[in-house]
């Protein structure tokens, strides 16, 4: 096995190990690793900053959203109030008009009833006078006696009374 037979190469192997390993150590320690750590640190900072920015934007968006929602809710309640006011106004108007109309109807009805009553009274009076005259005329034709108006009228009244 050359590993155990070539003992004379041990010194050379270890010498070159120390030289190359030492060189690599110094280069990595002084040049590569600080650079790497800077790169990674900067990236981490950038990521953190971006996350922080995103969080701020999210907060702003949330605020805007809540403002918008509040505006919508306000507008909705305002609209509802306007609708309610209009409804109330219309209902009041309708009630007043209804009241005026029913008053007019009542008045017209009363007037008409009065007119009817008057007409009826006139008609009854006319019929009465006609009946009295008819009775006078009939009496004079039948028995040839003139019945005074007062008697005839009383007789007609009695007869009418009797009929109810």
């Amino acid at each position, binding site marked *: *096995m*050359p*590993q*155990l037979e*070539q003992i*004379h*190469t*041990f*010194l*050379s*192997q*270890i*010498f*070159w*190990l*120390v030289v*190359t*390993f030492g*060189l*690599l*150590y110094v*280069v*990595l*320690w002084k*040049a*590569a*690793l600080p*650079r*790497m*750590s*800077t*790169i*990674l640190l*900067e*990236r981490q900072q*950038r990521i953190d900053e971006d996350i922080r920015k995103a969080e701020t934007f999210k907060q702003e968006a949330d605020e805007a959203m809540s403002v918008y929602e509040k505006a919508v809710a306000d507008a909705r309640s305002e609209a509802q109030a306007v609708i309610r006011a209009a409804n109330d106004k219309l209902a009041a108007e309708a009630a007043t008009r209804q009241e005026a109309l029913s008053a007019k109807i009542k008045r017209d009805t009363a007037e008409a009833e009065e007119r009817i009553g008057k007409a009826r009274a006139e008609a009854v009076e006319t019929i009465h006078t006609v009946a009295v005259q008819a009775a006078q005329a009939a009496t004079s034709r039948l028995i040839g006696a003139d019945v005074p108006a007062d008697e005839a009228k009383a007789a007609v009244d009695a007869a009418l009374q009797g009929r109810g």
Partner: protein
Amino acid sequence: MATDTHGGEKHSPLEQFEIKELIPIEIGGNDISFTNSALMMVIAVALIVLLMVVGTRKQAMIPGRWQAIAEMFYEFVANLIRDTVGNEGRKYFPFIFTLFMFILFGNMLGMVPYSFTFTSHIAVTFAMAMVVFLGVTILGFAKHGLHFFSLFVPPGVPIWMWPLMIPIEVISYLSRPISLAMRLFANMLAGHTLLKVFAGFVPALGAAGILPLAFVGALTGLEMLIAFLQAYVFAILTCLYINDALHLH
């Protein structure tokens, strides 16, 4: 017959682990030649630097392909340390990261045909394990002083058990670098040897060689997993040892 068809004893499955001198260097009588092992270490370091430094040069807020891979490794190791050591582990992040990437790239480069796996050598893995072991021990003493020895006394153990428990704990502590080094070394050695052995069956079996070829294909996938897993295990155990040294129990 079979041995003749695939070149005889010369092509041992262990030949791939042989260290070859590329540029002979000698300083004060010590042989520190640049070898194939050293070449792979240099390539591994070059690739890691390319990925981690050139790949992230734009420092883009939105990462491109290479930066995404670099970030993935960074966060993987960062999470590993956070989960095992906690926030105090940040100081050791560069070391753990270097260790993880070095072993991972060493293992992965070893999967390239005709390349060399420097983590399959006990000298390399043991050296890394000893650095971890000594570093953790020094860290423990620096942080807790002599109180660090209480690591060897498991909490809640009655005093009459101490003569038994303390030697066990000391042995388990001292065996840490050995197990750390052996685990990586043995995994790389066994995996690559197995691949080589089965690959050797492919030409030997002729038309039926399709079976070992399929097996080698599947085994390559498994070895990729092991290459990653062993780097991960080495790194996580280092983290756990650091955690032990920082918090004792």
